[in-house]
């Protein structure tokens, strides 16, 4: 690895490129229209090298995690279409861009920036459109099972031809979406952002020359790569295996496993997800096309790099050493028909999986698992004045972050969701007549205990008076398995949802798909606490006391779990010493990870080898049949396990055969047609 460019100019150009990327994002924010742009900042911008790598991306505005955006295929296609000065290209299809777009709601525009008839580099920008057509308003629904339900698929297409809008395309596009004016407004904002970047790059070319600019583009990429490799080299070589789960129980999918073998070889990271579960028939598939450094996977690595070196150069050089190995048909590399709308939830769990693997290599650097949920609680009520249905965001719901190796987790928010802002109760109540937010506070005793405890979860309690109110909350996770603790630390509390708590009508309702409420119903939601780090019996008694007097830990938990006896706000030291001796004797051996009883019980029934064997057994079948065989087999096996039988490879083979037989009864015996995909 050598730095091509002069080391002074590197820093100057790095700053100039950064300024352009940031300015482009600011322009889009200022001129964008839809709520996603203004409120959640779900848009992005970047500068792209000729080879399709991000050489600068914003760090403070919009989506700031996109350095691993794979643009090579999109550029190949725009070159085939012919690139001219003033052209802008558009696409949203994951398949035809090989993972540049990862769901249809993100509309990408890119523009070649010319000098003397040749493109020097590219600017790209995307916006999460609030609606791109499809089965449901807003386009995204977890229950969607194929991409065609998720909106209009746009292949790489010339959107501006020498500065002129492609009217035929625009008309087709706007006819297929529910909010055409807003979408057109957002596209105009992207075009303004791209023009800004073009002007700034041209200023640089005027000052330094095109060859020098291109040389520095390569220079800053190489520089970031060198910085990343210097950090990765510190990680001991070896293979680190970890898996975690997503929860598809609402859609008949049980839990879905993301399994990673992280192979560290010198300064390269190989992320092998080949044993991750196959793609599923709901919308959590993630189309990475196994691209090197893909941003939705590399996110977990980039966060670690930026934690280790906060001022690190921020571009695709960081993810050059990150290689993905994901076979087609996998949850993380599904076929082109798979539904992908809710892939953000999957991204969070991948980050947890990478953390778990890295934690084995770097036990002193990686936090325990955070809440792992980033759901958006929506309420829809009929507007009594107009009779129309009104949908409003009540609150983004995340929980505490995982404990760090040297300090507690953060209460009430997790890094993965750390960019979100909550909505003031005073705004919610003013805008939704008849909705009262009775409480919004930290959740006592939810944090995973440890020498360093996790962050606590959040409790939200609301009372709803209008008739026909319904609640949805897409992205709820960790209601089955807990956020894991580390190094003898305990896991955090699971999520909990109940209706009318403390009354006779109290009901534990778990994850919400669509919930209808009666007037006066009280809904209570409690998010997860982050996992703990280190043995809770080693926690400084004074910290436990602080948590007790601040009300975050109950006196009971302080005694039972931490062995710290707090009386009248003071630590009873003698009693604490005694209690800790007793608890230490009773304590089961901990370990690198504290997963909690639910996951341990599940893996008692479904050990790693069995899960892998099941995936291998169904692998030869075409995608729809594979899902069907897998889901039915799991259900039948669980039923047998409930009767006391132990699930085995042989049992699974029998069950698969049984399910297949049930599908082919109408054909009589013999033949193997089903396997060739007639389903």
């Amino acid at each position, binding site marked *: 690895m050598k730095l091509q460019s002069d080391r002074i100019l590197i820093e100057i150009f790095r700053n100039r490129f950064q300024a352009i990327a*940031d300015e482009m994002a600011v322009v889009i924010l200022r*001129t964008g229209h839809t*709520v996603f742009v203004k409120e959640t900042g779900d848009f992005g911008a970047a500068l792209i090298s000729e080879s399709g790598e991000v050489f600068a991306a914003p760090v403070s505005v919009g989506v700031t995690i996109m350095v691993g955006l794979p643009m090579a295929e999109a550029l190949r296609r725009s070159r085939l279409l012919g690139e001219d000065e003033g052209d802008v290209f558009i696409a949203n299809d994951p398949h035809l861009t090989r993972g540049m777009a990862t769901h249809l709601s993100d509309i990408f525009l890119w523009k070649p920036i010319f000098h003397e008839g040749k493109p020097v580099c590219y600017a790209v920008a995307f916006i999460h459109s609030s609606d791109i057509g499809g089965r449901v308003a807003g386009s995204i629904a977890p229950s969607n099972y194929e991409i065609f339900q998720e909106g209009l698929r746009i292949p790489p297409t010339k959107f501006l031809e020498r500065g002129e809008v492609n009217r035929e395309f625009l008309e087709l596009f706007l006819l297929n979406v529910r909010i055409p004016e807003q979408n057109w407004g957002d596209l105009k904002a992207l075009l303004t952002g791209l023009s800004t970047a073009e002007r700034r790059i041209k200023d640089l070319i005027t000052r330094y020359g095109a060859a020098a600019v291109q040389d520095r583009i390569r220079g800053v990429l190489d520089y970031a790569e060198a910085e990343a490799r210097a950090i990765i080299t510190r990680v001991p070589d070896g293979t680190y295996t970890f898996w975690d789960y997503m929860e598809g129980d609402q859609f008949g999918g049980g839990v879905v496993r993301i399994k990673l073998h992280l192979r560290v070889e010198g300064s390269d990271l190989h992320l092998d997800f080949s044993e991750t579960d196959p793609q599923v028939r709901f919308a959590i598939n993630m189309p990475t096309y196994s691209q090197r450094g893909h941003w939705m996977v590399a996110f977990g690595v980039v966060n670690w790099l930026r*934690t280790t070196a906060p001022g690190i150069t921020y571009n695709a050089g960081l993810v050059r050493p990150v290689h993905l190995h994901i076979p087609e048909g996998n949850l993380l590399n599904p076929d082109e028909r798979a539904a992908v709308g809710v892939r953000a939830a999957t991204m969070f769990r991948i980050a947890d999986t990478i953390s778990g693997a890295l934690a084995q290599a770097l036990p002193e650097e990686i936090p325990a698992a955070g809440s792992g949920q980033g759901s958006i609680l929506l309420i829809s009520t009929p507007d009594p004045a107009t009779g129309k249905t009104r949908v409003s965001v009540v609150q983004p719901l995340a929980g505490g972050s995982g404990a760090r190796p040297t300090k507690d987790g953060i209460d009430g928010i997790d890094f993965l969701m750390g960019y979100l802002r909550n909505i003031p109760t005073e705004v919610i109540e003013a805008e939704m007549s008849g909705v009262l937010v009775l409480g*919004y*506070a930290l959740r006592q005793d939810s944090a995973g205990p440890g020498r360093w405890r996790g962050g606590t979860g959040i409790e939200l309690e609301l009372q709803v008076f209008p008739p026909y109110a319904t609640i949805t909350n897409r992205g709820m996770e960790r209601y089955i398995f807990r956020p894991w603790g580390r190094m003898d630390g305990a896991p955090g509390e699971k999520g909990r949802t109940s209706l009318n708590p403390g009354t006779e009508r109290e009901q534990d309702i778990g994850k919400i798909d669509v919930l209808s409420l009666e007037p006066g119903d009280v809904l209570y939601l409690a998010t997860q606490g982050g996992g703990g780090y280190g043995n809770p019996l080693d926690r400084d008694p004074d910290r436990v006391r602080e948590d007790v007097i601040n009300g975050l830990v109950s006196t009971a938990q302080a005694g039972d779990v931490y062995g710290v006896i707090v009386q009248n706000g003071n630590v009873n030291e003698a009693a604490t010493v005694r209690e800790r001796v007793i608890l230490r004797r009773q304590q089961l051996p901990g370990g690198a990870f504290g997963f909690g009883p639910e996951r341990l019980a599940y893996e008692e029934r479904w050990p790693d080898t069995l899960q892998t064997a099941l995936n291998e057994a169904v692998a030869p079948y075409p995608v729809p049949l594979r899902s069907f065989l897998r889901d039915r087999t799991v259900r039948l096996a669980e039923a047998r396990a409930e009767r006391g039988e132990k699930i085995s490879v042989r049992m699974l083979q029998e069950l698969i055969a049984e399910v297949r037989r049930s599908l082919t009864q109408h054909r009589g015996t013999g033949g193997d047609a089903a396997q060739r995909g007639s389903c």
Partner: protein
Amino acid sequence: MGPYRLGVDIGSTFTDLVLIDESTGRPSMLKVPTTPRDPAAAVRQGVQALLAAERLAFGDVSIFVHGTTLALNTVIERSGAQVGLIVTRGYRDLLELRRLRLRDPQNFNADRPSPLVPRRLVREVSERMLADGSVYVPLNAGEVAIAARDLEAEGCTAFAICFLHAYANSSHEQMARTVVEEICPGAYVCTSHEVWPQRREYERCSAAVINTYVGGRLKSYFTRLESELRRLGLTAPLLSTKSNGGVMTARTAGERPIETVFSGPAAGVIGASYLARMIGEERVITLDMGGTSADVSVINGGYTFSTDASAGDFPIILPAIDISSIGAGGGSIAWTDAMGVLKVGPRSAGASPGPACYGQGGTEPTVTDAYVTLGIIDPDWFLGGTMPLKKGLAVDALATLGDVLGQTAQEVAWNVLQVATAKMFAQFAPLMARHGVDPRDYAILAYGGAGPTHVFMLAREVGVGKVIIPSLPGGLCALGCLVADLRADFVHTWNRKLGPASVADLAEAFRDLESQAHRWVATEDFPVAAVRYERTAEMRYAGQSFELSVPLDEIDISDILVRFHARYHAVYGYADPDAPVEVVDIRVQVVGETIKPQLQIPTREGGPALLGDRSILFEGTPMRVPVFDRKRLTAGAAFSGPAIVEQYDSTTFVPPGFRVRTDHRGNLIGEVE
């Protein structure tokens, strides 16, 4: 001769004093080191020295305006009162949860700042207002009494009260205040609706808590300062500057100290804008660069205000002059990373130990060391020779980087300035985009100790063709104190759809705010030439989640809808005249225009302006650069870069490519040749 106006600005390194003779407009200036332990000591000592030098007595001073960072420092250092907070049941974690968002969510070591009031000192009481101001649960005064007693027993000496929807109905907060005052007589008590009655419970609560946290300290500071100055013979009214660029009486400042938090930098912008207006410049970007920060603000006819400034870790939603940092100033430390790439900042040597050349123990090279090494700053002429710098230390510090980079200290120094400028550019360009400003249409007005030194290099980089260096670049904040107006802001959350019927109600709501504003001016009891009201409505299309500020300069607001649609179109490029429109907040800013002194720079001292020349290294080439004495440059004097202009409080560096002339008010005006 006389009377005299006296402006004092307490900065982190220096306390600046400017005295203006109202009859002649002649200013005089003094800088004394700030005394952080007892800031009033430097004020007293500086005032005495300045008056003595001008052969004046305290009684000759007609107005004393004073700006202090004491409130800001109290928050940043967390050295305020032990505050107890009383909130609505269910909302104990207002301060813990904030608005959730983390400042740096990609860094696993990030933390959310711990609140000024720990969770154990927050008490919930039964009470509940609804959004329309109706009472849902009456206040349980008994619970308030218990909470106050508990908190007092825990050692709280100040109390903040924040109830939900208090902006719509403040009666519960008022009742609770009475209860707390009865139980804890003499305690500093503050309610959220008094501080800033705007919807959004976290921000309103945070404002009330900050005001309570710094209240006691600021109140006694102002009281003590006033009594000391009175004892020394001061008879003039004592005023304090405000974050919104205005002034208020010291008495009011003791009640509402939160409004002094950003007053220092705000006064600088006021001073800059006053000078710009005098020379007919409408569009100006101010650059205030000192030892610890480089701040910019945009003036486009008037100031721009922001409602999302931060004091240390906490948001302040009261309107403040919109000022953004674009870097760490002359104290920014230069270093090389593991790969040998040259970096500047974000660490700063600050005021202490300061740059290596200060000789106060700093060994790391800074931007200021680069100026000295290159010969831009004359080490023997810093602060008029009162604080000589050690060039040898600067060169040594830069030479350590030279070893890594294979360059001489001089070459490194030049590269440090290049990198520092690129970093400022990286902040500056997106910031201008956020303001919707094309910097090419603007002039930069530079002040602060390092502003004149660096501004031309920044201007070249960002494409600004015109640079203004005022005659007192080091005293602009103190000058701003003297030309500020009485200014106060009032807000009301109206939150209704706008229809033909409700326009009349809205007008009524504006009249209410204006009468509050009128009362404020009357109570301040300070002579003003004229009073005007600036009205704005925060509006949006029904169902949107963000608002647009619509200025309403006429008393008649019947065309408010037309104005909204027009403004929306101007900002977003489209408008929907048929869609229903909501008004969320309305604001009134009252301006009591003070009588401004006419600043006149005295006739220049005689003698040749050209002091000689120095050799500096510019873009890798050594060149001879003429050095001018600022106080001898007469109106009309002109020269081309490269050139250096020295004066008491700063050094101006003009690179090649700019031509500079001195205007008849003593400003240096630089333009691209």
